[in-house]
């Protein structure tokens, strides 16, 4: 390799690293939602990084998270071509998704009671959702993805994410109507 092309390669590596490093955690979270376990999630993220690095020349520099999540979704499909994509199935939710409310702050006994009630009811309500609605809810409200990023993961239009999200929220909100604390707790 010539000195110039070696310098290009170093610069390319640095650009890629700066783009990707801030997204590692969200990629792992989304990968765990798409796969059935932590080890699979790590494999998926590493394979995604390999493919993204190879395809860096075709990236326009805008919305790196959506770009990486699109590659993540495609990589997952390719790695499990024979399997139907799994999106946070019920067993996984039961095993891993115990809500933990108010862990970062001190709270009143009353609030602790409300949160415990909410914990159980939220878990049941989210678990009862159709997997497609649940995936939209988890990606946007738990993983904090934008509509466009969730659309990239699910391979559906933004409008579909919005309608699934709205239906999911509506069902969970109605199921929790008597428990959800309102007024001053937003």
């Amino acid at each position, binding site marked *: 390799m010539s000195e110039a092309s070696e310098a290009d390669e170093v610069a390319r*590596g640095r650009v890629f690293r700066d783009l990707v490093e801030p997204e590692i955690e969200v990629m*792992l979270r989304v990968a765990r939602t798409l796969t059935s376990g932590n080890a699979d999630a790590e494999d998926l993220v590493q394979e995604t990084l390999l493919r993204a690095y190879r395809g860096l020349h075709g990236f326009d520099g805008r919305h790196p998270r959506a770009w990486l999540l699109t590659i993540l979704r495609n990589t997952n499909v390719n790695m499990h071509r024979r399997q139907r994509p799994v999106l946070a199935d019920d067993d996984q939710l039961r095993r891993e998704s115990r809500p933990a409310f108010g862990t970062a702050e001190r709270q009143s006994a009353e609030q602790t009671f409300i949160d415990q009630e909410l914990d159980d009811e939220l878990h049941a309500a989210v678990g009862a959702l159709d997997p497609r609605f649940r995936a939209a809810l988890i990606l946007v409200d738990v993983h904090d993805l934008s509509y466009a990023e969730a659309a990239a993961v699910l391979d559906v239009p933004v409008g579909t994410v919005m309608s699934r999200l709205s239906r999911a929220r509506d069902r969970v909100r109605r199921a929790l109507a008597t428990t959800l604390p*309102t007024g001053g707790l937003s």
Partner: protein
Amino acid sequence: MIGMVRQMLTCHWSGRRIERYLDADPSAPLTQAEVARLETHLASCERCAKLADQHRALHRALSLWSGPAYVDPAAVNRVRTFLDELTEGRA
């Protein structure tokens, strides 16, 4: 009677925009006029204000749900090491 129908229509109009208002997602922004109309309505309609409160509370509950959101810091470090190796031509 007309006032009641108008109020119901505004509630319906607002109900269809509350989530977009609270999410403030760049893919589906409300116009300034829509935001102003919605905020005026929320200030005067108890039912819609309660709906907005429920959405805020639900979002708070879901954002604190640590199960799906938890990522093992060791996994993040392993991926970071992989990224270093990849970009330094060692992977």
